[in-house]
């Protein structure tokens, strides 16, 4: 579980950028690339080390005019942490 007050950031080994040729957001790392689906990209783009998980959920719910995203965001961030894509960051 990731603390709702944690402020996750993309790990220094990875670079998040939009690839026009792929028409997708990707994570770049030494000698490799992960092509992200839309939900993954929308979450990771908000992992700036400033915003808390709670704020990310609020922001996504506002942007996509829906609610109940907290479970999905937590599940994704746990996976992303396991893969080394994000550092959870200290609670604010």
């Amino acid at each position, binding site marked *: 579980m990731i603390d709702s007050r944690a402020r996750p950031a993309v790990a220094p080994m990875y670079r998040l950028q939009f690839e026009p*040729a792929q028409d997708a957001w990707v994570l770049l790392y*030494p000698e490799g690339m992960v092509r992200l689906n839309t939900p993954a990209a929308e979450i990771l783009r908000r992992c700036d080390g400033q915003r808390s998980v709670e704020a990310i959920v609020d922001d996504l719910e506002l942007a996509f005019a829906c609610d109940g995203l907290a479970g999905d965001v937590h599940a994704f961030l746990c996976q992303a942490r396991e893969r080394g894509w994000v550092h959870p960051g200290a609670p604010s």
Partner: protein
Amino acid sequence: MNPATGKPPFWLLAELTYRCPLHCVFCSNPVDYARHDAELDTAAWKRILGEARALGAVQLGFSGGEPLLRDDLEALVAHARSLGFYTNLITSGVGLTAARARALRDAGLDHVQLSFQDSTRELNDFISSTRTFDMKSRVAAIIKDAGFPMVLNCVMHRFNLPHVGRIVDMAERMGADFLELANTQYYGWAWHNRAALMPTVDELRDAEAIVVAHRERLASVGQAMKILWVSPDYADAKPKPCMSGWGAVFLVVAPDGLALPCHSARMLPGLQFPNLRETSVRDAWFDSAAFNAYRGDAWMNGTCGTCDERHADHGGCRCQAFLLAGDAAATDPVCRKSEHRGRVDALLDAAAAAALERGREAPLRFVPGAATGGGLVFRGDAASLALSAPSSELQAATP
């Protein structure tokens, strides 16, 4: 190939120079490198990077030779980063001062891969025929201090396989994010030196077991370092998906501008590789006869063309097929289905027989700048010219 439906290169390997201060006996540069010493200038490289990026290339490796010998490296890194490439520096470490590491960081370099030849000074210095072990150890710290992700790469062969546990320890101490244990692939200089470098199957299995144990240990204590064990394909008898397929994802640009599907392909006879001095990246990649020669599976013989593995291993390696079977379109001879598998087994049998003889062997003696030693020919300009002289039989397929 149709540019509208075909995939662009994903990986661009920019071999900025064949010049190198080291003399490694398994160097991946072509044996005749000294005959291709006219290097592209900065403007030509910038144009090539721009064209490749516009096609969709994402990963960029600056390699060589030793890329730090180019004093325009920082400018090329900055240009590449502004284009959106993920930039990798593949280096021996020679020339990477703290100031230069900072300058490369400021230019936008993303990652550094540092080569080691062994965990001991004696063998590292012998295999590279240079006094570089202590320098490399300092450079590893410089890379980490500058904040780069770091891959340590060590080419493995019979001399250093018994040290594999100590190589893992060394990489951990240095704070490597990845350790690539690259079992020797026998092309170019390594092909020439194959008799002296080839380990026995037992030596490979013992080393792999140690790697597996270290992986489990690292995972159990939550250590992040990952270890890649490059399959020794002669012993594993499993064709590698070489370059993920010919002309599929990987584009090498040699120092003189030649566009190649892999580091080694320029020695294949009968193929006219395009030179990017006069050909665009798009035309070279999609339209040149050489890049289409072994693309997809239409070129495959009956053995590969009907094999269930053909989409996984792409028929293995064309250079290996040429070196071992004398035919670049043959099934990769490491495969059990190849009619030439016996030639690979003969090399492994010879390695096993040589191992039995070994007790009487003289210890390796490091002589800086030596041309030969320990049954090996060191990479160097004089050896390159001699081995690629018209009368040389180096290219002959007689293992």
